[in-house]
């Protein structure tokens, strides 16, 4: 399912390489610390305990809940179709991600909607996660 054209995605760096590598296999991960904290995006240290040496990438379940969203009606770059939905989604693992919501009428989204990860493949072997309705039926309600 290819539903949107992402803006330019800069190359990974030494801290984020593992996260992006997993996206190529359509695996969503979060960075987890030995102290129990989970964070996104991956950083060179744990923002909870400060450790730099016990951070690993852990698999995420691939589901989330819509924390908040906005329907964008004016494109920031040429040739980008509108409207589209930008959202914050909250993972059960803890972190909040900025993402796109696709697969439903833009006017039908509500805070609290359950969503599941989907993938937009990039030309360089990586993929960009976005989210779609877990249960498409919920979006048949009136916008």
């Amino acid at each position, binding site marked *: 399912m290819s539903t949107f054209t992402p803006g*330019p995605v*800069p190359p990974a760096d030494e801290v984020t390489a593992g996260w992006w590598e997993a996206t190529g296999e359509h695996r969503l991960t979060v960075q987890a610390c030995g102290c129990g904290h989970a964070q996104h*995006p991956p950083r060179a240290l744990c923002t909870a305990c400060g450790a730099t040496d016990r951070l690993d990438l852990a698999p995420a379940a691939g589901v989330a809940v819509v924390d908040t969203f906005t329907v*964008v009606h004016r494109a*920031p770059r040429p040739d980008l179709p509108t409207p589209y939905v*930008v959202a*914050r989604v909250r993972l059960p693992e803890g972190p909040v991600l*900025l993402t796109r919501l696709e697969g439903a009428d833009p006017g039908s989204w509500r*805070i609290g909607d359950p969503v599941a990860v989907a993938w937009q493949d990039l030309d360089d072997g990586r993929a960009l996660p976005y989210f779609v309705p877990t249960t498409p039926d919920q979006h048949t309600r009136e916008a």
Partner: protein
Amino acid sequence: MSGVAIVGAAECDLGVTGRSILGLQTQAITRALADAGLTLADVDGIATTGVSRFSATQVADYLGIEPTWTDSTFAGGSAFEMFVARAAQAIEARQASVVVISFASNQRSAASRRLGGVFEPWVPEAQFEEPYDPLYPLSYYAMAAQTYLHRYGRTHAELAEVAIAAREWALLNPAAFRYGKGSLSVDDVVGATPISTPLTAADCCLVTDGGGAVVLTSAERARDLAKAPVSVLGYGERTTNTSFASVDDPTVTGAVGSAADAFERAGITVDDIDVAQVYDSFTITVALTLEALGFCKPGEALDLVAGGTIRPGGSLPLNTSGGGLSYCHPGQFGVLLLVEAVRQLRGEAGDRQVPGAEVAVAHGTGGILSTHATVVLGRAR
């Protein structure tokens, strides 16, 4: 309370000027110095941003002075309230004796504003957020508004009062971009072009040229200058986020701590404030900041502003210039919050003067609710 005062304040040309950034900066600085009865020869401190990578250095070179103190902190619209704190500290420490805080932009004439913001490919947001094309900063405020209206069961029509009240003030200010443009209705705001829902074009600040400057010196020296000094009573700041996703609840901002620190330093409570200048990049910014400053509890800002409270003649005179929504927004509005606060405390605000204003608060907000800085000013006795 500090031993420092604001002794000069001025705007540069506003609106659509066709002028250069440094041309406008020069207007702002020379007019503010003239207002104070000082000259460039008196200035040994420069705080500015938005000129170039070396903003304060650039302005110092352009003016032909070699300051003993500069600050070019880049913190979006709140930088100027932060500069007041730093300038007060520099003056009290005797590193500088006369500091000019200035800003100017020609963004409307130069058509230099971009909806997506500035792309810096080395920051994490470039990898993890910008590929989704949020409008920067607009979509963050839109999502905060979405959360706010949802959580408290409020409506966009109620939020519109912030823009409607700003327009009423602008109709009293001949310098305002929307002066003479008539009142706004709820339908004008809610029915305007949608940009990033729930916010429409009428929920968003202007995009204009403009800027201003304020001049600070010691309270002792201030007594001998041209105008009645305005005392720097207190200040505070908080810095929270660059990411769209790192703040757990976007409706609770760093302004809470910033304001609490400023009020404590000033020895005041929110009830002592006669006039408030609160950054209004968007209507929602005002609602969240009024709550953070303590004018009401979380979730109650739209009750507070209903019924004309923040309009001319209301019990909480707010953004008396017309604000970023209807007066001027040159990209970083914070310096003009200070200029209007000074004019109100001096009794120079003409048709929009708040009678007997003795204590003013100016609160700046930068980025995506990223930086927050509060300044409490008072008429010197």
